[in-house]
């Protein structure tokens, strides 16, 4: 039977590990956004050499499961690399997630860049703007609005994907649940609580997104 007392007891225990999950998610969000922007710009301008490389990277990252990437990196690459062997699990997870989600974000950003009408670029050109000025003043302000919803989607996926960290022994939300589960075997309440915590965290971020979008949408 569902034990509401145990559920309420385990809920704060699991929730207490949210900072670990958020640490991984936010670090990875920062670097994946950075990587995503770089790849998107490479794809947008079709830079020679870099473009095919970026495409191969994106295709690979999107076409293989995160778990496999994580294991391959943390256990596979570690066989040959002392650097990876010395890495803390949090760093390793953040790194793999950055690469993976960065690939997804690059597509979201690229689509947003393409959504800016060429006519505006030309209008800006005839106002005597340089290419750099056009990117900064015309393309980014508009692409940002378009990119926001899909980027938030990527970010939500990132938060959830960070739950894989427990497989490397990181004591995040899922890690806490596993510890608790091996003690009490009350998986129904424990993983119920885990889902509630993730849901609350993601809903909180989603509220932030709505605020941001509202502010950005004014012009359109």
């Amino acid at each position, binding site marked *: 039977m569902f034990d509401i007392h145990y559920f309420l007891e385990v809920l704060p225990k699991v929730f207490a590990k949210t900072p670990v999950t958020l640490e991984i998610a936010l670090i990875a969000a920062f670097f994946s956004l950075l990587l995503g922007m770089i790849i998107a710009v490479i794809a947008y301008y079709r830079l020679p050499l870099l473009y095919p490389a970026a495409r191969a990277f994106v295709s690979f990252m999107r076409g293989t499961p995160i778990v496999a990437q994580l294991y391959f990196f943390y256990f596979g690459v570690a066989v040959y690399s002392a650097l990876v062997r010395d890495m803390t699990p949090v760093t390793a997870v953040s790194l793999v997630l950055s690469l993976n989600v960065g690939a997804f974000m690059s597509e979201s950003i690229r689509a947003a860049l393409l959504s800016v009408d060429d*006519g*505006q670029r*030309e*209008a800006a050109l*005839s106002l*005597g703007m340089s290419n750099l000025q056009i990117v900064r*003043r015309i393309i980014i302000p*508009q692409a940002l609005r378009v990119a926001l919803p899909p980027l938030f989607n990527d970010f939500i996926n990132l938060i959830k994907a960070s739950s894989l960290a427990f497989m490397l022994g990181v004591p995040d939300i899922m890690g806490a649940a596993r510890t608790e589960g091996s003690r009490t075997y009350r998986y129904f309440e424990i993983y119920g609580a885990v889902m509630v915590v993730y849901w609350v965290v993601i809903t909180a971020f989603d509220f932030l997104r709505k605020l941001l979008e509202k502010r950005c949408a*004014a*012009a359109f």
Partner: protein
Amino acid sequence: MNGVEIDSLSFCYRDSKQEILHEIGTPVEAGEFVCILGQSGCGKSTLLRLLAGLEKPTGGSIRIDGEEIRGASLSRGMVFQDYGLFPWMSAGENIVLALRQRFPEMTKAEKKALALSMLEKVGLQREIYSKLPKSLSGGMKQRCAIAQAFAIDPPILLMDEPFGALDAVTRAKLQDLVLELWESGERSRKKTVFFVTHDVDEAILLADHIIVLGQRPSRIIYELRIPEEKRAKRETQFVDPEIISMRNELIRQINQDVEQHIGE
């Protein structure tokens, strides 16, 4: 100054063999109001884009005061049919952005004051300054675009069917406005204007130099210079026999070209 020499200008897009423009050549004097007239898809806009420096000619050249143009420039202001205003900035901010490009030495207050006075000049109220383009009517948007173009005061003004999407009344008002601004030319000498249109009557009303472009590939099939004293006036445009015969001739030339290409 600001005479424009278009010299056997040809153009085709990089990945196509089809020539869009074929050896177009005409001298344009400083201060002329040139209307580029022709059917849809005949290359009028392409010619304007070449003049703007947004495309590179594949043959021939465009020279301004003897100097070949290279890329887009503030000295050739452009009024587009739509994209003129950036949608996330207010009407006033759009004008200020252009001023910032043109007069970097101006203070913020000066730029704002000039933008406001330009809005007034094109018949808009000061409140429009803080309105976003989406909240303005088509006519108001084009007034803003014209205000912006005249604010940066380019010696050459390029207008790509600027009134194509407006209703007849608004269109007539804006035609008068453009003529008024062009004729006054108070802040500098008269601008050289290139105005693309497919409307024969609009061309007759505005231009003192009409270039008629034919189809595939586009070349000049007819050219007309109208001396100052013979310029059309709105009140007499449809009664003056001379203007009417001019109009008939223009239409005849266009139709002749169209017929030649039917069934191609």
